[in-house]
């Protein structure tokens, strides 16, 4: 075959989920520019329109929040953006891997296992969230939305929040067989309301009881509390541990669920 036969390269190591991340990095060479542009424009819009614009109105009515409105709201935006990106990346792109371009089926005919494919896709989303949250934070800082170095902890808080939710969406992506209409329901009736009822724009103490319970259940509220606590303080260690624990429960069950559904889907 061919003119010269090159000997088989040695199989250097059992492949890991990071090989799937590497694939996504190769693929990202095509679209990293649009990723960065989106990653800059989104925070600019929110920080300017709501943080600075709405912030003037809020701040003129007396500083009941104790800090400028932008400082109060920006860590929450950062967390909400992480959750929305995570949900988007774990939905249709994963479904494409199963159904449309079928790349996942190609992966599991190599030594990679369905669990590794699942882990690799989730790791890739985590990488994206870290990059995107860092960008978000830089823009917040440029517009005076930060007050102290602790705010850096908003990046891991937002990433954890996004991953807690992304893992569940990934499990859903592995289950859906139709054209992905389930995701439209998810975005309209879960992701958007979560944004409005998770203490993003105002403390949830402003909400009636039922609204507060919505927030308690929502991973976004727990992530927002963590990120805001990092940005402006006033968060007790016990509360922080509680929020982290709640998000970890989501993340661990989500990953287990997603791995299981990947196995079922890819070994039919």
């Amino acid at each position: 075959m061919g003119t010269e036969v090159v000997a088989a390269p040695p199989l250097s190591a059992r492949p890991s989920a990071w090989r799937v991340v590497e694939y996504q990095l190769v693929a990202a060479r095509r679209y990293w520019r649009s990723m960065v542009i989106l990653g800059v424009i989104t925070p600019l819009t929110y920080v300017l329109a709501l943080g600075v614009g709405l912030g003037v109105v809020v701040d003129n009515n007396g500083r009941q929040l104790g800090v400028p409105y932008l400082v109060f709201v920006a860590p929450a935006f950062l967390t909400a953006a992480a959750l929305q990106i995570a949900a988007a990346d774990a939905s249709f792109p994963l479904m494409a891997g199963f159904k449309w371009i079928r790349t996942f089926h190609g992966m599991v005919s190599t030594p990679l296992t369905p669990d590794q494919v699942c882990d690799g896709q989730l790791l890739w989303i985590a990488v994206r969230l870290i990059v995107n949250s860092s960008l978000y934070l830089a823009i917040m800082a440029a517009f005076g939305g930060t007050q102290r170095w602790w705010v850096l902890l908003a990046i891991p808080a937002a990433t954890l929040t996004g991953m807690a939710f992304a893992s569940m969406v990934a499990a859903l992506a592995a289950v859906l067989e139709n054209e992905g209409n389930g995701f439209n329901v998810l975005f309209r009736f879960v992701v958007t309301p979560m944004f409005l009822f998770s203490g993003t724009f105002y403390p949830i103490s402003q909400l009636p009881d039922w609204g507060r319970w919505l927030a308690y259940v929502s991973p976004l509220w727990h992530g927002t509390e963590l990120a805001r606590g990092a940005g402006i303080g006033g968060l007790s260690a016990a509360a922080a541990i509680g929020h982290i624990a709640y998000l970890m429960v989501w993340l661990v069950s989500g990953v287990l669920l997603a791995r299981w559904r990947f196995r079922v889907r890819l070994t039919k």
Partner: protein
Amino acid sequence: MSAPETAEVLARNSDEAAEALISAQGLTKRFADFTAVDGIDFDVRRGEAFGFLGPNGAGKSSTMRMIGCVAPVTAGTLRILGRDPATQGPAIRARLGVVPQQDTLDLELTVRENLYVYGRYFGMSRAALRPKVDELMDFAQLSERANAKVEPLSGGMKRRLTIARSLINDPEILLLDEPTTGLDPQARHVLWDRLYRLKQAGVTLVLTTHYMDEAEQLCDRLVVMDGGRIVAEGSPQELIAAHSTREVAELRFAPGANAAAAERLSAALTGDRERIEALPDRVLLYVADGERAVARSHEIDLFPLSSLVRRSTLEDVFLRLTGRSLVD
């Protein structure tokens, strides 16, 4: 266990199992309420080209997915390179090449990137992959498109890329599920040529097809599958000798007249292995001497609109064994 060890053990195991790289006994695949593969036995020997021939739904693809260590076995035993896919799937898959029925290429990536990324799934190093990727693009006649996206490539080119990709780890066994379905005749011949070269290079080929010409071109040995079972086994020539006659006379009568003609012709047959098959559009006479059969039809005043004498093919074997044709 580290990877080099795994490779050595596999190599040793496969030496011991030189007779059968793949061995299946009572192999069964059941889905909820449907048995796709119904207890089949077969062995694939090193260096041979082994085929599963059968219509769509015969259980070929399910069998291939079990051999590929992707779908679990429901019942029976399956050993690949002497190993059990249930416990050593990744180690076996490291030594297999897989060409699935539907391409799984990333259309957004270039030809080169597709090969590179796939090699990385096998744990191959970047340095080792570079010459390998070049060699495979050359083999697949895609070197000129190395840095082109896959999306706009023709079906035949994509298929060749899929085959090139399946060779990235220098597999001991290459599994091809319907390798040329959906390709135009010219693209099929280019692909057959590439597969034939692989066979000459000593790669063990296992393929499924519902094209009898493909099976005849490529397979040293094949099994005919129908309804999840193996209904016959042998080389193409053996199968034709065992299940058909040397020649076939195809007589085409006016629409609606074929059945009646078949009725009258059956009286004219002599040899005990000779028989008649009445299809909706023509009558097939399985005989030792086709020209004589056509002449006899004229003797009893049956004049077909057209007649053709040809040698028997696997298509006839399949028709004989199952009462149905391969391509519906």
